[in-house]
């Protein structure tokens, strides 16, 4: 099995890639290719042109400056999972990256390609929403021509396989605040046994003052077209002393935030996934706060 015929173009810079994209309505960007190539092999995607951005140096790199962790869009899952900087700045991302797919998927798959593909079963979107990440997007023209914009993770995803990215825009980097010592994070998922994709994934980032939660950001994904912030849960957590009871009570409120558009399939129905959202979220908060151990 293999793709239909296409023209292959390698871009050496972001601006070149955008130029190529702008000139060709039938073009697709490819970073590691782990989202696009499987679709092309199944002939569900038939781009006339594939623009390979995999070699663009300016899209590489992980840095932490002034309390902001910046991850280049071409950073692979393996690089995330093996980076001490990510471990120390955003432990949840470091842990989550290690649980994506399998070693070969992690070696080739990139954070930018992953989130741009916006697969509902993907892990990173949920985590990035909980981390309040900002996505840097480059379009035609430079900063002065308002070609560059920044979008919050929660606003980036607009549905299943759908984002705010315009036809000729590229996601270049993802930024998020470095977690402080009193901020604890965890991602828990029920993985599909065939693919390790999230049937239900839950991310929690809690800021603690002693045993009391002062700020909480939680999100769930896998069961919804795009990640959902658990604002009811967050409100219930804040100001609480976190223990098994308060966490469970708060996590159960996720149902209020889920809405009605729940994914179901032959492996797990919408009803089941809905019920599991609270369970996975509970696991995530338990683990984040150290109430449960790995």
């Amino acid at each position, binding site marked *: 099995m293999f793709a*239909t015929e296409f023209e292959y173009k390698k871009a050496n810079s972001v601006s070149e890639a955008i130029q190529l994209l702008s000139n060709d309505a039938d073009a697709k960007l490819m970073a590691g290719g782990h989202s696009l190539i499987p679709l092309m092999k199944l002939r569900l995607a038939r781009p006339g042109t594939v623009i390979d951005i995999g070699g663009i140096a300016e899209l590489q790199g992980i840095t932490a400056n002034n309390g902001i962790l910046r991850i280049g869009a071409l950073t692979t899952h393996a690089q995330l999972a093996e980076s001490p900087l990510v471990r120390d700045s955003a432990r949840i991302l470091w842990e989550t990256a290690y649980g994506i797919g399998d070693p070969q998927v992690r070696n080739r798959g990139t954070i930018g390609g992953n989130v741009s593909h916006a697969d509902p079963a993907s892990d990173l979107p949920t985590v990035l929403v909980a981390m309040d990440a900002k996505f840097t997007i480059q379009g035609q023209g430079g900063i002065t021509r308002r070609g560059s914009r920044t979008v919050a993770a929660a606003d980036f995803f607009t549905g299943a396989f759908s984002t705010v990215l315009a036809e000729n825009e590229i996601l270049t980097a993802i930024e998020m605040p470095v977690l402080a010592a009193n901020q604890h994070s965890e991602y828990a998922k029920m993985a*599909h*046994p*065939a693919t390790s994709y999230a049937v239900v994934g839950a991310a929690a980032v809690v800021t603690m003052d002693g045993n009391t939660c002062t700020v909480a950001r939680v999100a769930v994904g896998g069961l919804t077209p795009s990640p959902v912030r658990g604002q009811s849960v967050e409100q219930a957590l804040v100001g609480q002393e976190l223990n098994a009871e308060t966490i469970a009570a708060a996590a159960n409120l996720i149902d209020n935030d889920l809405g009605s558009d729940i994914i179901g399939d*032959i492996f*797990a*129905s919408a009803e*089941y996934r809905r019920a599991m959202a609270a*369970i996975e979220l509970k696991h995530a908060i338990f683990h984040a706060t150290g109430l449960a151990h790995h």
Partner: protein
Amino acid sequence: MTTRIFGSGIRRREDPRLITGGATYTDDVKLPGMAFAAILRSPHAHAKINSIDTSAAAAAPGVVAVYTGADTDGVLNPIPCAWIPPDSDVKAVDHPALAKDVVRYQGDAVAVVVAENRYQAEDALELIKVDYSILPAVVNPEAAMQPGAPQLHEDAPNNQAFHWVAAGGDTDAAFASADVIVKDTIVHQRLIPNAMEPRSAVATWTESMGELTLWSTSQNPHICRFLASLVTGVAEHKIRVIATEVGGGFGSKIPVYADEMITSFCSMQLGRPVKWTATRSEGFQATIHGRDHVEHVEMAATREGKITAVRSVIYAGMGAYLSTAGPGVPTILHGLMYCGPYDIAATKADIYGVFSNATPVDAYRGAGRPEATFLVERLVDLLAVELGIDPVELRRKNLIPKFEDGHDVASGITYDSGDYEPILNMVLGHVDYQALRQEQARMREHGEYMGIGVTCYSEICGLGPSQVAGAVGFGGGLWESAIVRFHPTGKVNVYTGVSPHGQGEETTFAQIVSDELGVDVDDVGIVHGDTSNTPMGWGTYGSRTTAVGAAALVLAVRKVKEKARLLAAHLLEAAEADVEYADGKFFVKGSPDQSKTIQEMATMANVAWNMPEGMEPGLEASAFYDPPNFVYPFGAHVAVVHVDPDNGHIEVKRYVAGDDCGPQINPMIVEGQVHGGVVQGAGQVLWEGAVYDDNGQLLTGSMTDYALPRAHMFPNIETLFTVTPSPHNPLGVKGIGETGAIASTATIYNAVMDALRPLGVTGIDMPLTPEKVWQAIREKQGS
């Protein structure tokens, strides 16, 4: 004392080529001028073909030819079914290689494109236009027999492919007088075998000679040649089938499929080599599936726990057509095994084979016996609950006592040898069963759900006596043969008709030769898989390769040995009666320094300068072995699982396999067979299952939807063994290729139900996905 080579876990001799990428599998074969075939398959489960337009495909770049059923009709004979159980009214419906008027399952072959390369062939498939009128479809075998169900074949009213009954003892009386009856409905979901190597064929036709050579991913090249001859009309002696390196089969490479015959047809039409290789997704649709039973089963017993009878009514899905051995699986290999290792006086199997709009079903690892073991072991556990008896004690109470040379069971077969209690005691001691039960009780107090599953099994394999094969409608023999040939340098080749594809007989067969003749194991080469240079044999399946093939080998080896002994006596100028053999040497009794090695005899026999009068030159022998009976391995397995009631997730914490396959030629290989079988059986309980929608669309059509066991999903497997030789085969060996899969499905299932018992859950259809477990708990908790 030197270590005997028979029984030692030496590393495999086939491995060097496999660990270096040097092996040649069928898709690795590249012939000059070779073209590539791609097969267009029906997207519909049931439809009438109104027309097929191949003109655009035929004009596409690189395309050499496009053929449809109109081209193969009358040229290729229908794909045959080769196992027709007697007295069961089998409807051997026509199975055209390329569908002509009607397609009957999603994946039915409709057309073939031959092109200069793989990419061009697959591209051109998209250009073939088929006009279908969609017909209603039915997939579930029980539903397919209900009035009003869509009908697949005119010749098979109610979609009934056959009706087979096997009864022994007075089942009705036993049920009528039973103190207790337990019942269940068991669904053995369809499994998709997924040998890692997709099926592939390379055919090359030599027009001038009228000869066909076919590389085929087959477990039984001689059967493939036999059936290919029937389908293509090419005489059997003009067909050469080569099963080169074969990447696993598990039964799925027993059948002779339409695809290999279509590939042969293309080569014969075009006069050039043609290769076809299935994509994995194509394999999901067009390689046989396994299991597919809907079973209504019951067991009768006394209040004291003596099992008196077992009976079933089973709807066994055959899929759209009868595959090569399909009808034999739910009948002969299943319905005769309802006693298991227990003394049960009456059994009755009432089996309906059913056509449905799904991929044909055939033998898949265990083939009928996992279903039989599951049926018995499930009912025993239900009975234990009903009677309030510990499930182990109930089993122990009903085990057949030790027997060494034959034991008749109610279903009408005779087990060869069995000693069931020691292996049960061994596994129970190994896990400390009582301590496990105590741990379970403690955990339950904390709302944690651990389950313990214990099963005993006996299975039938080593297929089998040819006379029985004939009596049960198997369209061939089941003997094996071997040729042992010494070369002038004292090196040996063994030529065998069995066809290992991962089981390691290049090693174990060499161990046998080495053990019998004192030749270094590395001086023995095993030749298999090519009909042009191996003797007739019926192939590798049904755990028969060692039990039958190695038995033939040892007979041939002993013939060679005797000839060498007589030659040695001649050369030593000793009386024949005075020459003995030990440790690779023939020596004159009482004078061990007067000796000749087997290698010296090989040289002398091959040069033939000084042979005894009347002795033919050469040192080789051929032997045929037709077993007087099947072999009956047995064992006891234990699984320990944890179930999380919050999400329904099951974790297998421990798996202990206790098996008895008689003497082991290579324990490392035996253990490997157990490991693989256990995890395949676990796959059925926990993850695997083909799902079709109501229109017969396969929803689990790739490895992204059909979950196969992976390394992180199952723990290490603890293996234990006892050794009870079979009385009737020259080595005493039984089979071990399927036992793991035969026992583990029932063992793990029972463990999960044991875990869930306090929650009121008594049964869940497999696979036990987290949602199904969670729903079952919820239903009980809510009620």
